[in-house]
């Protein structure tokens, strides 16, 4: 409890310091912040989110991941990924290395489009380029299932997001501003819960640290409810009684860009169990 008071104090300093630094400084500061706040958590274990903070939950996770109840869904995603388009090509043709070890490079800043492009947006671009109908970005039964498989092709790859040039930097800064902006009737920022209070319980729920939050999507909540990263953003927006932004909006894409950069160096692991 004593630690909580100190951590709250630290968090205030943290938020103001982060507000002035470049991406790599941000990332290092965040790691240092969590190292002092949650000294028991090893860096590579941040990918487990709240589970890294609770032994029982982590061992529940480990046993569920041995035979995940959602393997069938991932199989379905594999079929979608491998099914040829009308022109005979497949998704693999749109990505370097057939889509293996690519997800860690996302989101990427596209200088010609002058905006942040997510893995999902490039999947839609692939459909479009091959004369197929695009998926709705928020549709878990198409895009969700497909990426539940497609992202497994990058398992083990280290996150490697780049912020190069003024326009990319502006998008990054926009995402950062979003992250620290208080919103909603309850007046929370993302940082209130996942930086300042990471490791604390809100009611019975342990709050996961921001670090590692972008590495393991989609998740299957309660082992069955497929949830994408940006639909989780929506959920967290609603919790604070704010009007949620849309999956695929520039706001969420920039937020994902900012958050993903902080996870550079952490390994990806797709389609995991969450409570």
């Amino acid at each position, binding site marked *: *409890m004593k630690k909580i*008071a100190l951590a*709250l*104090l630290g968090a205030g300093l943290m*938020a103001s310091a982060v507000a002035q630094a470049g991406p790599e400084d941000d990332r290092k500061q965040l790691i240092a912040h969590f190292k002092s706040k949650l000294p028991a958590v090893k860096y590579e274990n941040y990918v487990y989110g709240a589970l890294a903070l609770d032994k029982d939950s982590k061992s529940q996770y480990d046993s569920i991941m041995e035979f995940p109840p959602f393997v069938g869904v991932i199989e379905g995603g594999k079929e979608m990924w491998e099914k040829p388009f009308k022109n005979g090509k497949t998704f693999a043709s749109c990505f370097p290395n057939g889509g293996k070890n690519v997800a860690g490079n996302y989101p990427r800043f596209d200088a010609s489009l002058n905006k942040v492009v997510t893995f999902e947006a490039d999947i839609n671009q692939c459909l479009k380029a091959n004369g197929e109908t695009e998926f709705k970005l928020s549709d878990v039964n198409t895009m969700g299932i497909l990426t539940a498989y497609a992202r497994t092709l990058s398992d083990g790859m280290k996150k490697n997001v780049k912020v190069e040039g003024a326009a990319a930097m502006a998008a990054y800064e926009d995402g950062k501003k979003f992250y620290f902006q208080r919103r909603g009737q309850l007046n929370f920022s993302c940082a209130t819960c996942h930086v300042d*209070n990471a490791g604390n319980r*809100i*009611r019975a729920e342990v709050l996961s640290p921001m670090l590692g939050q972008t590495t393991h999507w989609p998740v299957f909540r309660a082992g069955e409810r497929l949830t994408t990263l940006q639909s989780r953003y929506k959920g967290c927006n609603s919790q604070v009684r704010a009007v949620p932004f849309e999956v695929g909006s520039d706001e969420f894409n920039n937020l994902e860009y900012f958050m993903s950069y902080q996870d550079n160096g952490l390994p990806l692991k797709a389609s995991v169990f969450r409570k």
Partner: protein
Amino acid sequence: MRKSISLLMVALVMGAGVTGSVWAAEAKTEAKKEMPGQALAFSNKKGNCLACHAMPGTKAEMAGSIAPPLIAMKLRWPDRAKLRAQVWDATAANPQTSMPPMGKHEILSEEEIDQVVDFIYTL
């Protein structure tokens, strides 16, 4: 300002450790009284104080660990108006606070705030 709040919290918490058994005993008698303020403080649709604050008589695993426990309120907040102001807008005392501004953002009505303050004054 921030520093003094944090120190206050440390002091409180250490105090709580010492008097812990005392307030747990008191809680049993208090819990018998039904108060609208208690329902408001516990409900996650309303004050949801329990999301962050433990209170005497609540199970530890039900309450969050974000904020200091609400105990000995009358003793610590002899001026009821100040306590009410803390609940109405915690950001006034501490702009960095995690605590939602219950009155300012109309999370609770003025009357509900009075009821919640009545309730926590019994803690």
